[in-house]
């Protein structure tokens, strides 16, 4: 190549056959590229606009949660789980509570389980709103994102009413909730059930039969079921390939077996199918919330936690005035209560798939080992291999449709 360059005279620049036209170009996509919505780095080898190969570098926001968790009492691990998939923190919180409850053999009253179902389904909607809204933005349709974003805001208002926080909620306690849903919360949930369907319908009308959107997404990053299973995919992206695996149905937790809902599946596993699956899941979530509200009506009022004084922090007023409450408060905070020496795996259907908690207890106040099975981490590993041969713009919308959340990816 140096020969050919030296032959070219400065005032007569022409391309020759030896010119670097057919050379590959290395493109560093990320770690802070605006189109990747988070800290993801992919070093791509591109031939023009087509990706030849790529390597993902992850871990930019690794915070060593598993190590920290080995040094925290169980109830202090909940805020760590907030920061895994921060688009649907309540699911993570409840997943963690349920893991500990499984370890301690705590059976929750039905009303609490239905309350949890409501919160989890609301956050699933919030999660899918983000993913599908952003997918619209990345394909060039900004307005749909703004329509649904307002509803996400409303969901956050409900969370605020229930627990006081919006994004990293730390919602609930081991054994139930820290307080009952107030009347405003119930009213807001009912209002959400009324106001969200028309918005979602409008959102679908914008996209589902939109020719530009379909041409941009259909057949992009299509994955067959076998490959998806081989890569241990889970969640909406696995269901888009046609596998009806949903933890809520396969291993029902929190009384999901009592609810009537469908598992939407796709056929081709492309970006368009993933979009449709997520949209349909939002409809199913609405159905579940509605049923849960009806079921709560039939349960006795005012129950918001299980009767497990050894693990559920008593209310502060009682701690100051009641001997027993003071003792339990002290025991819980100081970690004087024994837990069984065993191991437990519990998983919930998170926004992105099977969110698992593998907890090994040595009988103490904090886990001997806690491992998070993070769906984003496992789903994302196929990203670089599947990107080869794709156009760069397709790879971008592929990433949005995988809905990889940096917090969950890096833990």
């Amino acid at each position, binding site marked *: 190549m140096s020969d050919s360059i030296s032959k070219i005279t400065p005032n007569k620049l022409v391309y020759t056959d030896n010119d670097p036209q057919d050379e590959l170009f290395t493109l560093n996509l990320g770690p802070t590229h605006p189109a990747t919505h988070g800290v993801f780095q992919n070093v791509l080898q591109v031939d023009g606009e087509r990706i030849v190969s790529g390597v993902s570098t992850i871990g930019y926001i690794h915070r060593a949660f598993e190590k920290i968790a080995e040094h925290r009492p169980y109830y202090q691990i909940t805020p760590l789980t907030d920061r895994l998939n921060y688009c649907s923190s309540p699911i993570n919180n409840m997943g963690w509570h349920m893991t500990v409850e499984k370890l301690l053999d705590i059976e929750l009253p039905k009303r609490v389980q239905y309350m949890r179902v409501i919160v989890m389904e609301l956050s699933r909607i919030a999660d899918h709103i983000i993913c599908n809204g952003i997918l619209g933005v990345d394909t060039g349709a900004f307005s749909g994102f703004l329509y649904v974003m307002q509803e996400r805001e409303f969901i956050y208002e409900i969370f605020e009413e229930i627990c006081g926080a919006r994004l990293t909620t730390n919602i609930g306690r081991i054994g139930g909730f820290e307080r009952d849903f107030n009347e405003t919360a119930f009213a807001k949930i009912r209002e959400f059930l009324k106001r969200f369907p028309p918005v979602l319908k409008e959102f679908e009308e914008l996209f589902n039969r939109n020719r530009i959107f379909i041409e941009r997404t259909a057949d992009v990053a299509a994955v067959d079921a076998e490959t998806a299973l081989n*890569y*241990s995919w889970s969640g909406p992206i696995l269901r888009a390939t046609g596998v009806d695996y949903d933890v809520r149905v396969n291993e029902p937790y929190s009384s999901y077996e009592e609810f009537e809902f469908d598992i939407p599946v796709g056929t081709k596993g492309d970006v368009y199918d993933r979009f449709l699956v997520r949209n349909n899941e939002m409809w199913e979530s609405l159905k579940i919330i509605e049923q849960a509200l009806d079921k709560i009506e039939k349960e006795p009022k005012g129950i918001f936690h299980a009767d497990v004084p050894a693990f559920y922090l008593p209310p502060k007023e009682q701690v100051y005035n009641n001997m027993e409450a003071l003792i339990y408060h002290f025991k819980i905070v100081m970690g004087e209560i024994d837990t069984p020496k065993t191991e437990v795996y519990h998983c919930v259907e998170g926004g992105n798939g099977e969110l698992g908690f*593998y907890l*090994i207890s040595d009988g103490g106040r904090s886990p001997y*080992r806690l491992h998070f099975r993070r769906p984003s*981490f*496992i789903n994302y590993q196929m990203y670089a291999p599947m990107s080869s041969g794709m156009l760069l713009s397709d790879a971008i919308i592929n990433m949005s449709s995988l809905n990889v959340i940096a917090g969950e990816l890096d833990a």
Partner: protein
Amino acid sequence: MAKLDNQTVLQHLQTRFTDHIQQVSEPYGLLTIETDTTHILEVLEFLKTDNNLLFGYLTDITAVHYPELEKEFAVVYHVHSLVNNIRIRIKVFLDGNYPAIPTATVLWNGANWMERETYDFYGIQFVGHPDLRRILNVDDMEVFPMRKEYPLEDPNKVDKKDYFFGR
């Protein structure tokens, strides 16, 4: 197909691998078995391909460190049969000096990053892994931080010592 339960799975495994399946337990209904490094791949392959079992879905690979045991490290596999809707947990205990185990990437592509993560935090060598590099930590890190000998915080700090709290 008749519904598969833990006992049947165990019977299938024991007829095939006899006494290489040890330490059987069922914490919270999840069948947990232990095997050794020489047989782990065969066990996984048998679970995956046997027509009665079809444990085709690798849920997770991780490790645990028990510094007080003779074999310090345990590699834990969670495998799931989506067809029969049943899970199994397989453990392999490894020697502390040179913890090595054959890779499961030959069976599942998804094992790649799970094993890299396990290597990153525990230093377990997955023999035959195509790309065994650190994944979440920086490349030039020299320790394996999830091992129990590495403290979470600066050990010279005294404000969180247990004896201040009567523990």
